[in-house]
């Protein structure tokens, strides 16, 4: 295209709009073509729905203890049976979707932006600050994630909020690493040089021109991590270091049913299946999102 061609503003806006629409349309086609991704997305949409209308779906109060009804087998009255305190397991699993979603979303909302900011800053500023921040992330990466999360959860004291903080602390370094790598690859590009020569401040370049370039890889990484985040939260709950009774958290429910495993298998196993399905959904969706956002995949 001829550089001297002058495009008036409305024309530019129209073209940009068209390009975006085409991008979305192609994404939709890629999404439809990937059957596993459709399955994964459906699972997650289903989870969102269940969490949203939990009070309508639940047949009982998830906290109400009816001791004479303890450890009942699954029946039309109690779809998944009852636990050792006579609470309806089905209703608790339904309400548990809220706990799981809350943890996963908050961890994502804390650790990804934190990692993104640190990574872009470190990569763009460089020098001693970069060195310090990256050694710091090395130290965090030197611990297995689950162990670090457990250690922080234990230190902060059990509870859902602390579990969220603990998992976020264990998660941010990988996003920082990724954002830094992306930043290094674009920071000396011509377009950045041009903006810099036009007098844009460092902050403006980082926020407006580098961060958007890192977003897609962070999103891909985050969507692949969602399953692990949920597994970690469930593991913390199971060990007694995450959500505390009587919160209907799935990992905690699996742990509660351990002593009744032989004769009342449903108490432990059914909440576990809920974890399995949701994590599977996130993993399938994550794989699909990676394919959709991957430019190589798009060309074919």
């Amino acid at each position: 295209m001829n550089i001297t061609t002058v495009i008036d503003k409305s024309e530019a806006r129209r073209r940009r709009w068209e390009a975006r629409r085409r991008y979305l349309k192609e994404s939709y086609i890629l999404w439809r073509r990937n059957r596993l991704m459709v399955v994964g997305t459906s699972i997650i949409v289903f989870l969102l729905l269940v969490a949203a209308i939990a009070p309508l779906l639940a047949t009982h109060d998830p906290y109400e203890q009816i001791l004479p009804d303890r450890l009942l087998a699954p029946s039309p009255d109690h779809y998944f049976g009852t636990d050792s305190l006579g609470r309806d397991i089905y209703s608790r699993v339904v309400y548990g979707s809220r706990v799981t979603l809350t943890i996963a979303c908050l961890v994502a909302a804390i650790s990804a932006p934190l990692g993104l900011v640190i990574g872009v800053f470190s990569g763009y500023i460089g020098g001693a600050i970069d060195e310090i921040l990256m050694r710091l992330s090395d130290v965090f990466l030197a611990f297995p994630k689950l162990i670090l999360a457990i250690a922080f959860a234990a230190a902060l004291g059990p509870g859902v909020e602390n579990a969220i903080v603990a998992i976020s602390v264990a998660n941010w370094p990988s996003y920082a690493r990724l954002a830094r790598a992306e930043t290094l690859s674009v920071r000396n590009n011509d377009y950045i040089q041009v903006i810099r020569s036009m007098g844009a401040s460092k902050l403006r370049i980082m926020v407006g021109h580098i961060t958007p370039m890192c977003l897609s890889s962070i999103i891909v990484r985050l969507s692949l991590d969602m399953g692990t985040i949920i597994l970690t939260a469930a593991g913390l709950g199971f060990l007694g270091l995450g959500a505390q009774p009587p919160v209907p958290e799935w990992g905690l429910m699996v742990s509660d049913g351990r002593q009744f495993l032989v004769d009342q298998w449903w108490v432990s196993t059914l909440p576990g299946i809920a974890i399995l399905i949701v994590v599977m959904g996130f993993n399938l969706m994550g794989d699909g999102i990676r394919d959709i956002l991957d430019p190589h995949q798009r060309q074919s």
Partner: protein
Amino acid sequence: MLQYILRRLFTLIITLVGIMVVTFFISLVVPLDPLASIAGPQAPQETVERLRTLYGFDQPIYIQFGRYMQRLLHADLGTSFQTGRPVLDDIIQYFPATIELATISLIISIIVGIPLGILSAVHRNSVIDHFSRVLSLIGVSMPVFWLGLVLLLIFYFKLGWFPEPGRLDIMLIEPERITGLLLIDSLIALDFEVFWDALKHIVLPASVLGLYGLAGIARIVRSSMLDVLSQEYIKTARIKGLNEFLVLTRHALRNALVPAVTVIGLTYGGLLEGSVLTETIFSWPGLGRYLASAFLTLDLNAVVGGTMLVALMFSLVNLMVDLIYAFLNPQITLTAS
């Protein structure tokens, strides 16, 4: 190469110092007063004060940190409040059980994962490919603690094929401790009854961790095998009339396994981490269970010591993986230096 190794060792030392700082920080933020739990709720104030001076909790933070570093450099991890023994002794006792479990699990995931990855790459989109992908998906999506419970329920409680949780039948006497690895110690002592029993005990927990591990391995072998199989030199090998088996093993697999090495190393680290949950379920007397109970009771010295050891192991494994990778793929050291 030597320069590369030295530089990696140097960063490892920095990381280790960082690990010490982080574990110290963890021990600082604990809100519960560990002294109250040692002394008991009824202890008079002066006893608590005496304990505070004894453990040095009355000193300023930087002095506490200095003492802490000094102790660590002398390999003194302090005494566990829970067992009343030096943490180092506890770790020496429990660690081999974890190594044994993680190693057997890794062996399971390698001998199942690599062939599965090759087969699904060679027979792309066949039944076996789909099977292996579903298995991988389940492997990464399954909560290990749940799988452990389900396997126990089916194979121990219902079918009785495998023995109760634990490392050895209580009626059997452990052989003399040489390596701490029960399977090897019993072979050295030529005690085949113990060996067989220990083997039966390890199958279930190792399968749980093994399934987790094989998912990643099968995946990476499949994708790198697909990459390699589309290369020109594979075509050349086929055109010159080499039989398919040799093409796959001698030409394709060798290169396809290079990326797998990294994943296998990372898997080993993941297995160490998964052992916390698995050991808790299978009453496996390893470091994972020791750590889990230390975390629950806020046994500070044990928490700090155990976490540090796991982080050290994890870093060493990562270092080894990098070195092996650099050895297999000389491009790495060239670009790095």
